[in-house]
């Protein structure tokens, strides 16, 4: 290929994508009428965590809206896998494609431009458009409440946390967890170990054991397998879970931060059916009452008094009376992050690369 043809092709491609953008910007998404959703799942439906929580929501939506929702499992985060799955559903008449992964973001954006009549919804995604909405939960709210349980259960005041990768959406659960624990036990300290993997039970077991060796007596988690719960039970300490109610895997589990996608999907699909669906330029960021993460609380070890406190805090988070990241908050290096009387903005949440005082680890 000569230089000239290459250049011309590049220019042509640029022009094409420009027209695509222009069309996308003009087109107001028309309601799809009779909604026919289909789901593309990142993991298997019995992963015990993230993917299973979406599969469980699917079953509730099917019952409540009396529809059947086809679903593809274990579709990796690559365009060559996502595209055929989505196009197969579209060919078969689906008009709402629901994803389930951060790594679907770019492909969903391309698909949404290519299919302006199809609506795309992507939990954990980051791209949005006239017919594409990314959705995530305010997971720090439920993790704050689980942190309260941890603070109340800990005798030593030393709490451990097993986390996947030091991303903002993991960092905020770590910070919220300790803020919650300190609500109950002001002297509580938290040590976090990042495994560097979302679902590596070998590393999670090692991390949990290392924390137990350091004398922690409650373990929190933001990884995809129930391994920390299992190890906590073996060590005779308590734990709190993430994604789903992990008490089914371990008696150590006293509280779980659980996804409630059906609480988001049912009204969302009803809105689409009624022609009232609206574009959200920054996606949807769901609180406890809007279909984000709620708590499955509490286990047998939690006193009625503590449980009442947790539920009261939950009410105050929902009403907006006591947000989790309310100022003044200074990070552990002494930088002021939220001034007195203010609440951390969503933009700052999505850029959280700092930890509150009392958190050890995550260097």
């Amino acid at each position: 290929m000569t230089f000239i043809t290459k250049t011309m092709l590049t220019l042509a491609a640029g022009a094409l994508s420009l027209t695509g953008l222009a069309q996308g910007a003009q087109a107001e998404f028309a309601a799809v009428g009779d909604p026919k959703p289909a789901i593309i799942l990142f993991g298997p439906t019995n992963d015990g965590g993230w993917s299973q929580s979406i599969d469980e929501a699917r079953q509730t939506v099917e019952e409540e809206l009396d529809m059947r929702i086809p679903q593809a499992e274990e579709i990796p985060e690559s365009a060559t896998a996502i595209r055929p799955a989505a196009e197969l559903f579209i060919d078969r008449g689906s008009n709402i494609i629901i994803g389930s992964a951060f790594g679907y973001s770019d492909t969903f954006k391309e698909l949404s431009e290519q299919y302006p009549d199809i609506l795309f919804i992507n939990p954990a995604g980051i791209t949005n458009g006239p017919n594409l909405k990314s959705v995530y939960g305010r997971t720090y709210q439920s993790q704050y409440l689980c942190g309260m349980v941890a603070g109340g259960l800990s005798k030593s005041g030393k709490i451990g946390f097993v986390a996947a990768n030091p991303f903002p959406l993991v960092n905020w659960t770590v910070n919220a967890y300790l803020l919650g624990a300190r609500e109950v036990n002001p002297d509580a300290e938290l040590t976090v170990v990042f495994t560097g993997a979302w679902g590596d039970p070998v590393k999670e077991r090692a991390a949990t054991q290392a924390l137990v060796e350091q004398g922690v007596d409650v373990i929190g988690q933001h990884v995809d397998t129930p391994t920390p719960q299992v190890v906590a039970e073996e060590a005779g300490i308590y734990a709190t879970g993430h994604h789903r109610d992990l008490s089914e895997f371990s008696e150590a589990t006293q509280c779980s931060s659980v996804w409630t996608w059906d609480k988001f999907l049912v009204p969302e699909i009803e809105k689409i059916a009624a022609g009232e669906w609206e574009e959200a330029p920054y996606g949807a960021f769901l609180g406890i009452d809007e279909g984000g993460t709620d708590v499955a609380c509490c286990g047998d070890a939690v006193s009625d008094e503590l449980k009442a406190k947790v539920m009261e805090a939950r009410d105050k988070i929902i009403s907006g009376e006591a947000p989790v990241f309310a100022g003044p908050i200074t990070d552990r290096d002494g930088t002021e992050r939220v001034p007195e009387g203010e609440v951390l903005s969503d933009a700052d949440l999505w850029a959280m690369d700092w930890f509150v005082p009392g958190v050890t680890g995550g260097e």
Partner: protein
Amino acid sequence: MDFLANWLINIPGFAVPFALAALGLIFSERAGVLNLGAEGFMLGGALAGVGLTLNGAPPLVALGGAMVAGAALGLVFAVLVAGLRINHVISGLALVFLAQALTSYIANENDWANQSFAGLQDLVLGQDIVVWATPLLCLGTVWLLGRTRFGLTLRAVGENPGAADAAGIDVTAMRFAAIAIGAALMGLAGGYLTVAVSKIWVDNVVGGRGWIAIALVIFARWHPWRALAGALLFGCIEALIPRVNAAGWAVPQYYLQMTPYLATLAVMIWSAARGGDRWAQPAALGQHHIREERD
């Protein structure tokens, strides 16, 4: 002191899967079969270990099953590379993808994911029987490869299959045997990972450790003892990282995670600069042998 004891006691659990997988790879590669399928054989063994354990088999039976599962996948690989003479790299990669999908499918059909179990118990000094057996297996490999007629034949096939063929050795049969033994050891490595270490199945539980074993074999220049030493080094680091973090020492974990690979690079550079040695890369690694065809 506690830190040191806790660290030391946890090293073997991490080192053993690497060591066993590396021994398995050495068998296969000393016979001239470039084996990128380690991750796949380990997954097969890991799944068999979990499946048998969850169905009530004692841990040692489960580990035996893991070896059988590894060897069975090994036979598939052997048919591809030694029988049909398909490119070693492509066959190895294909086997990994096959094993990833197949093990996920079987685990999900049987609801084995996330079911925890007691697994293999410790024998002496906080270590289980496989930990104690691993140096013996390493010794056995050194003896078998270096001191027996079988080992001499196996290495001849890996160094110069044409000459071996002319000397009356059945190259294909020898490679089948080497792959099967190697795959059984890699299956054991995977089985140990689930039955003794993670004590739970999740899809892709091996988590890339097969690829580390491949790097480890290059690091060890295809020598069993050096592979064992390399596995210990990797084990030291894997057991150290979470403890350093849990102890609250401000060491960025990325630097720690880099160290084994830096060591691998250093050894490769060192051995390249030093020139060939007796335990260097097998001369016919990755090459097919087709009788009466010119190389």
